[in-house]
């Protein structure tokens, strides 16, 4: 009896553990860079205490002015700069702000800024309240950049999803797992086998395309031929998503992990924007791929055929287009660019078994906003969603930024269900 109770409790515990989703990235921390007139300030002691005054840890800024203190969990913390350790000639801009009360959100690292000035120029906090952030326009520029970064990743995923929807009518809930699959492949080649990330990414994109092709050739194509209804296929895609996600969990484990390369790149400052060089390169690649796919859709025979099939499969078939062939190409390309999106996502966050599912709803938001089934609508909608998510952090807490995007999704349904570029008759 006793053992039964223990076993059952253990089972329940395991269930709760499984049902609860891990945060985006693990490891909350407080960090920052001390600078005086653009020059790093080193050797300054910064200590962190919990809200009740219990010390959590301290750090001393390095030669680059950086410091970081990991904290056990999300919550409010008091960060204190020890003014006696400041080099002579440098002082806190606001003497009464040596201790800051900051909020750390689940799974995120919180940047803490202490404003430093040459001694003798310090003022009172009341003079300028937004002193711990750069100017508002600087933040807007930074967030716009990050929004484009996220929006382009969403757009890569959304292209495939939208084209598959347009050509087959399938609302594919397993599309997020195509992203995770790509990231997992790249992780395997990069971290386990030690292949450089760029080569690993190329291999993974090819495998991702093959995965898309195989899915359509041996699974979705067969279901279409059996005459499975769209609602049935949608629920089947949920089953497939669950199946794949837990396979990833089985092999990868529940913890997120970064790729081996390009991990800790120091940020560079471009105008008002500061970001790691990998972000600029990633955005360049994403843009190039999106333009390439867009041009292919507009100019090539296959692209024109794909748009024709998305418009009206029956009419396309009767005018001599091989509909199944076109759909297979779309699945292949969709799988490949989804894998690329997954790798880019893994590069900007961590690789984890739920990454695809977590971004899937944002992809849906982008696709719906742009108009379900239209490739260019998906592109526009995704970038709007990415921008909206990042810029909304100006007014809403970072942890709730996704909520804003999903609310927009619902509002779009209310006022313009066909999306920006969609057409009325699709929604019926």
């Amino acid at each position, binding site marked *: 009896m006793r053992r039964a109770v223990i076993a*059952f409790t253990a089972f329940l515990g395991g269930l709760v553990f499984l049902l609860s989703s891990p945060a985006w990235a693990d490891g909350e921390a407080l960090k920052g860079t001390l600078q005086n007139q653009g020059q790093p300030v080193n050797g300054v002691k910064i200590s962190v205490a919990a809200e009740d005054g219990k010390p959590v840890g301290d750090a001393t800024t390095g030669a680059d002015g950086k410091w970081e203190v990991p904290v056990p969990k*999300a919550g409010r913390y008091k960060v204190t700069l020890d003014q006696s350790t400041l080099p002579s000639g440098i002082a806190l801009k606001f003497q009464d702000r040596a201790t800051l009360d900051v909020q750390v959100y689940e799974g995120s690292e919180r940047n803490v800024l202490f404003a430093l000035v040459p001694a003798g120029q310090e003022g009172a906090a009341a003079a300028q309240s937004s002193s711990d952030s750069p100017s508002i326009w600087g933040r807007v520029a930074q967030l716009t950049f990050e929004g484009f970064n996220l929006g382009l990743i969403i757009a890569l995923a959304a292209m495939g999803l939208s084209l598959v929807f347009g050509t087959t009518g399938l609302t594919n809930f397993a599309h997020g797992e195509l992203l995770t699959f790509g990231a997992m492949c790249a992780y395997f080649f990069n971290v386990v086998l030690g292949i450089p990330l760029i080569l690993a990414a190329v291999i993974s994109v090819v495998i991702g395309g093959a995965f898309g092709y195989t899915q359509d050739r041996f699974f979705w194509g067969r279901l279409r031929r059996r005459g499975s209804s769209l609602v049935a296929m*949608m629920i089947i895609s949920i089953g497939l998503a*669950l*199946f794949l996600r837990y*396979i990833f969990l089985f092999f990868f484990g529940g913890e997120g992990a970064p790729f081996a390369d390009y991990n800790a790149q120091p940020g560079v400052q471009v105008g008002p924007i500061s970001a790691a060089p990998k972000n600029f390169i990633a955005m360049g690649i994403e843009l190039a791929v999106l333009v390439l796919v867009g041009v292919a859709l507009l100019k090539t025979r296959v692209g024109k055929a794909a748009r024709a099939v998305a418009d009206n499969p029956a009419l396309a078939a009767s005018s001599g287009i091989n509909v199944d062939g076109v759909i297979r190409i779309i699945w292949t390309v969709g799988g490949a660019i989804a894998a690329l999106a997954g790798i880019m996502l893994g590069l900007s966050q961590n690789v984890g078994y739920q990454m695809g599912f977590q971004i899937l709803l944002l992809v849906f938001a982008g696709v719906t906003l742009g108009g379900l089934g239209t490739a260019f609508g998906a592109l526009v909608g995704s970038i709007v969603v990415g921008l909206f998510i990042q810029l909304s952090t100006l007014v809403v807490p970072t*942890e*709730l930024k996704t909520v804003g995007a*999903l609310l927009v999704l619902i*509002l779009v349904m209310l006022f313009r269900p066909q999306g920006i570029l969609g057409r009325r008759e699709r929604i019926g």
Partner: protein
Amino acid sequence: MDWNTIFITTVKASIGLETVVYALAAIGINIQFGYAGLLNFGQAAFLGVAAYGMAVTVATFHLPFWLGIAIGLVATVVLAFLLGIPTLRLRADYLAIVTIAAAEIVRLIFRSVQFSSVFGGSDGRQNFSGDFFAMNPYPPGTYGIGPISFNERVTWVLTVGWVLIAIACGLVYLLMKSPWGRVLKAIREDEDAVRSLGKNVFSYKMQALILGGVIGCLGGFLFALGQASVQPDLFSTEFTFYAYTIVILGGAARVFSPVVGAAIFWVLLVLVGNTLSEAVGAGLLPSLFTVNNIGAVRFMLVGLGLMLLLIFRPQGIFGDKREIALDAR
């Protein structure tokens, strides 16, 4: 391999708290999806707002228990309106996307640090079930047959749960025999035909969404009370997917199939889980399987099962192939 333990936990799972909660959620989904053809993928949110409505009223604001239940019910109905008004006029898959997004919104707000003074963040809320257990008529002790027995608290929760399931099933049976239920099924088959007969399709769909949500929300109350706590991640989208698996396993558009489906689902899940963990403990499986990752195997099987069911037997165990909503629009 301790087959005795496996047997006992499996039998207990067939009538346990999870089965009750998922059965109520699945009865709600059966009304929406099985009878009305609505793809509500946000059932977890309905359970969530009900459970949190009650827990927050009692634990945060120290108001009476029954007021908490009332607030939970009102919150569920409000959520149904919020979801229904924008989407019930659109095609089936739009409702699916919107409800799944709404469920994530609700979960993210419940677990946010910003509102943790109200909802308790990712730790959720405790200390609200006192009044419920004060009503417990069972004196302390264990109840059951031999080793398959529960303590007085669990027995009380399960009693209330199964009574609610019986009432819900009775209600569904009567409703679906009534003219109202026939209109609902007609909407599932052909919305335009029903509209041409002068019925207000939107209103009927909304009523189905609300009714399914309210029955599901009873499961939310029981989930919270049975565990004496609420956590946001209990109400993740996976909850809804499992409830759909249950409905399809039992067979959509049948009165008892969600209940039987829930029992079978949990029996299989517990049986597979315990057998695997015992097998790992006894070293019977390849070393690829460890205590940490066999949990994932069970849910892989859920996904696989859902796919295979829909491909090869969409009517489930008891369903009628002519009576399933899968061909809706």
